[in-house]
């Protein structure tokens, strides 16, 4: 039976998650980009949301949540769903909308690895294909009724499905794309103001992401809400402390990145951890993110421009493993076995990494072909994509 309270919460949670992509991520990424590429970077998040929304209702939802083992079918264009169809205690149409915002943000996260050089048209095509070919199947296995490829992993709100998946996709795309012309020259980020505001909107929206994944306004959702907040705070503090120790300058972009890292880390555990677990998950999450971005990254030669992999990927892996370790007593199943759960988590992580890597590569090549190339011309890159692709200027003083 429809519950108006649960439905009220899910209407809002969906709106919150929506805000994360064309506002939260757009500003977070846009603020960290070079001035001449701010709009293009924001535009990718914006258009990822628009395209994702359409692709999702057309076919993505059917693949992810239709009937079937390896792939779902039967709900193309939401076939058969009316305003009276329920998913648990909320309308299925609302569940469709909620899940659609997850698909959109996943591809938008990956855009962070490709900025300042990828062709806008190619990225648009990539977004549509990636959701259908990579995101929807992985979702189907984790949440949508797939059996063979479901390993019993705990992934409450998308640590594996969204974050590891998107991080890997970004890395692979960046690898295929190649480096930016002056990748090693460093960047003055356009404006930490925008980056912080974006991160805060992500934090805000993440309440919908994590507590919304309970699909009800109850005690578990409240627990998820609280520990999401705690982990974000812990992640921010950890990153700031690490910066302070290593560089003597705690930065705002660092604090913002740390909060995002804490949020990524807690995502799979949002339905099971307690406040003490969340604190550890968040602190370590912030620290893993910091080390990934400041040290690990430099061991590789991939120009993952805004570190989609080095935040969402590595921290996502930490979060997924930590989920099996830090469980609140009051949320732990009586027959819980940490050892076997850890195996499940690792199986799901590996499946996601492999499938996402292969799928993304294929999809990216197809998109490049259809979009007339992967990269903009050297001249356009040096002029900046705001002017060369959009004919616009971030700010006209």
């Amino acid at each position, binding site marked *: 039976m429809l519950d108006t309270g649960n439905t009220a919460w899910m209407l809002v949670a969906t709106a919150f998650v929506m805000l994360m992509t064309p506002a939260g991520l757009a500003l977070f990424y846009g603020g960290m980009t070079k001035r001449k590429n701010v709009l293009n970077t924001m535009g990718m998040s914006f258009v990822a949301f628009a395209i994702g929304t359409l692709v999702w209702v057309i076919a993505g939802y059917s693949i992810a949540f239709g009937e079937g083992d390896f792939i779902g079918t039967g709900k193309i264009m939401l076939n058969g769903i009316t305003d009276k169809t329920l998913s648990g205690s909320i309308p299925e149409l609302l569940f469709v909308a909620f899940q659609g915002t997850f698909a959109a943000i996943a591809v938008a996260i990956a855009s962070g690895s490709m900025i300042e050089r990828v062709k806008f048209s190619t990225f648009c095509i990539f977004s549509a294909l990636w959701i259908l070919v990579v995101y929807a199947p992985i979702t189907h296995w984790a949440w949508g009724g797939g059996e063979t490829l479901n390993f019993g992993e705990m992934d409450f709100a998308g640590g594996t499905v969204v974050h590891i998946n998107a991080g890997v996709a970004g890395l692979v795309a960046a690898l295929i794309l190649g480096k930016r012309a002056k990748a090693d020259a*460093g960047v003055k980020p356009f404006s930490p103001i925008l980056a912080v505001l974006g991160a805060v909107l992500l934090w805000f929206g993440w309440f919908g992401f994590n507590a919304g994944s309970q699909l009800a306004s109850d005690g578990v959702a409240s627990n998820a809400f609280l520990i999401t907040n705690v982990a974000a705070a812990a992640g921010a503090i950890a990153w700031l402390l690490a910066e302070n120790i290593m560089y003597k300058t705690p930065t705002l*972009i660092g604090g913002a990145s740390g909060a995002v890292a804490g949020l990524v880390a807690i995502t799979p555990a949002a339905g099971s951890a307690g406040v003490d677990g969340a604190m550890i998950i968040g602190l370590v999450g912030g620290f893993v993110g910091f080390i990934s971005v400041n040290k690990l990254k430099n061991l590789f030669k991939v120009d993952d421009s805004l570190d989609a992999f080095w935040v969402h990927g590595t921290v996502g892996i930490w979060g997924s493993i930590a989920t099996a370790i830090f469980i609140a007593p009051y949320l732990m199943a009586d027959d819980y076995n940490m050892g076997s759960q850890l195996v499940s988590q690792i199986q799901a992580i590996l499946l996601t990494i492999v499938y996402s890597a292969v799928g993304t590569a294929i999809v990216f090549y197809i998109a490049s072909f259809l979009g007339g190339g992967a990269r903009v011309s050297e001249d356009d890159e040096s002029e900046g994509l705001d002017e060369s692709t959009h004919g616009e200027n971030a700010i006209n003083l």
Partner: protein
Amino acid sequence: MKKIEAIIKPAKLEAIKDALAEAGIEGMTVSEVKGYGKQQGHQEVYRGVSYQVEFVPKVKIEIVVSNEEFLKQAIEIIKDKAHTDKVGDGKIFVLDVLKTIRIRTGEEDTEAL
């Protein structure tokens, strides 16, 4: 008439302006510039990538003076106030000015200053 072009550290502008005004030199034009020189900029780290910021923010002051007396005074004031003894304090250049006109009145040269 001579024109002074001084490249200084931004933080020194106000002290210089005040001292010049006190000395009766009350006209100047200021702009923001970026300097490149012995002061090698600084190393910055951003998201784990370190790089050299080579251009340093500076302020350029332009002052046209009508005689040698003012010229000397202005140079002394700038040298005095802009001085920190650290590399990057900046430079003073002196150029010749053939003519000056005050747009409001049409006055020329010395009267225009």
